[in-house]
């Protein structure tokens, strides 16, 4: 790989990282508004408020960057970066086109899962260093939630890796066949639920439950650092949606020619992201104990059963 190609890939990944989360965020603004009988943003940018998130970003830029006096200064200031950067890495690893990812490594499945787990560490750092009881409770809830939901998430992905016989996302997407839609369905459900929980999105937003914890671990953050946490959340939606589209929906497999494979993958990912938004609008937040119950009594056994099913299928040569 030449230096130029590496630079091009890095720029492409960065561009996707800056554009796709905004796209999902704007879609959430509008879809959520219409699901609640509203119109959503209508002014920024002229046409149906398309530039609302750009305007929000400019607003965040202008705000004062406050660090609480009692906060653990360096950890506090570093936390947004720890939350944001891993998703950049994860997004760079996800292939969107036949055989094409910004970073193509043999064990990309493992790397993606590891990166997304690190991102959650940022929330914990923010909660611990803020010197605020709401932040601390939010951070600890986030930690408890991540411990619970990491397991079903990994098990569900392991099932696909077993079915495809590879740890590379590109190879797994190539090995995909429509039969997986049924065969891997329980794992898909587990991944979607656990993914939404991993992102701390409603109905799994116990760590940032604003009625109880103000804004959870993000309570003390202002300005650009707060915006980074929000960007990390939406980048997380993009990563989880694209991962779901690649592993369970077949990525670029579709009725369109291979040249448009990237479009097909992105469309599938957008559809998954819309489901994540839809669920957020429709369902109330789970209580902390219900959250743990769902993970350990339903998702983990379901994921294990899927693993057994996949193993049987692989041995019998389905």
């Amino acid at each position, binding site marked *: 790989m030449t230096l130029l190609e590496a630079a091009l890939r890095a720029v492409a990944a960065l561009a996707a990282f800056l554009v796709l989360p905004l796209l999902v965020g704007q879609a959430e603004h509008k*879809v959520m508004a219409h*699901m609640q*009988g509203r119109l959503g943003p209508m002014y920024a940018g002229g046409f149906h408020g398309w530039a609302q998130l750009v305007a929000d970003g400019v607003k965040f830029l202008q705000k004062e960057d406050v660090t609480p006096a009692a906060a653990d200064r360096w950890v506090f200031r570093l936390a947004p970066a720890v939350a944001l950067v891993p998703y950049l890495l994860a997004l760079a690893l996800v292939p969107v086109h036949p055989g094409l990812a910004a970073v193509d490594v043999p064990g990309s499945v493992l790397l993606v899962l590891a990166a997304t787990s690190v991102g959650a560490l940022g929330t914990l750092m923010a909660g611990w260093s803020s010197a605020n009881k709401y932040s601390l409770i939010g951070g600890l809830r986030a930690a408890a939630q991540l411990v619970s939901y990491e397991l079903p998430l990994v098990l569900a992905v392991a099932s696909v890796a077993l079915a495809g016989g590879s740890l590379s996302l590109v190879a797994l997407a190539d090995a995909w066949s429509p039969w997986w839609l049924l065969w891997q369905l329980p794992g898909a459900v587990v991944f979607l639920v656990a993914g939404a929980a991993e992102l701390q999105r409603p109905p799994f937003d116990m760590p940032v439950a604003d009625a109880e914890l103000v804004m959870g671990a993000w309570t003390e953050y202002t300005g650009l650092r707060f915006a980074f946490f929000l960007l990390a959340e939406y980048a997380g939606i993009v990563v989880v949606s694209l991962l779901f589209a690649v592993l369970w929906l077949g990525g670029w497999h579709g009725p369109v020619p291979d040249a448009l494979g990237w479009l097909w993958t992105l469309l599938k990912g957008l559809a998954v992201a819309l489901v994540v938004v*839809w*669920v957020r*609008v*429709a369902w109330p937040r789970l209580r902390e104990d219900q959250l743990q119950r769902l993970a350990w009594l339903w998702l983990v056994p379901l994921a294990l059963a899927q693993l057994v099913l996949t193993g049987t299928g692989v041995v019998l040569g389905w």
Partner: protein
Amino acid sequence: MSEKHRGRHEQPKDTRGSGGLPGVLKGLATTARTAMRPAHTAEYPDVAPSLPPRSRGVIALLEENCTSCMLCARECPDWCIHIDSHKETVPAPTPGGRERQRNVLDRFAIDFSLCMYCGICIEVCPFDALFWSPQFEYAETDIRDLLHEKERLGEWMATVPPPPALDDKAAEPAEVAAANRPARTPRAPGGAAAARPPRTVRPKVVREDPT
């Protein structure tokens, strides 16, 4: 045990989420259905609201009708109407006649920071000089700017809607009835009494003799 007594001790059946679908799916269906319908949002600054015909937006003044009688100012519960006037002498129309005096309105102002939109001034005006207008966009950044003089009050006359139509079988309005009454014919110099009998006299009844 009768039906009536049993209900008190047993929990009523929980019907939430019933109707064929679990609650979570019902929630998804509801939000999806709402998303398919037009939004309820009123885009106010871009689209004017459709107000009911008798909206109480602002009080408009028809200056020509005002006689400075002060009835409105005196009836106003919070004294928000300011009226200044002076008398002018009108020369006699015919030589030897008497000079008349009439009121001339100098100032008519309503302080909308005090007005409580009760409408008593409009009800009480005997000369139809005050009207409700549905116009409501006259907010100010300084409360003192809400004192509006007669020029501004007169501008709002253009926004006063026409009075609502009468009901189908309502009586004619008094003005119309007066205008439609046949003009009084001038009395003829002679023989007029014979043409029209006095109203107090009972008309003579002519009966034919049956025999």
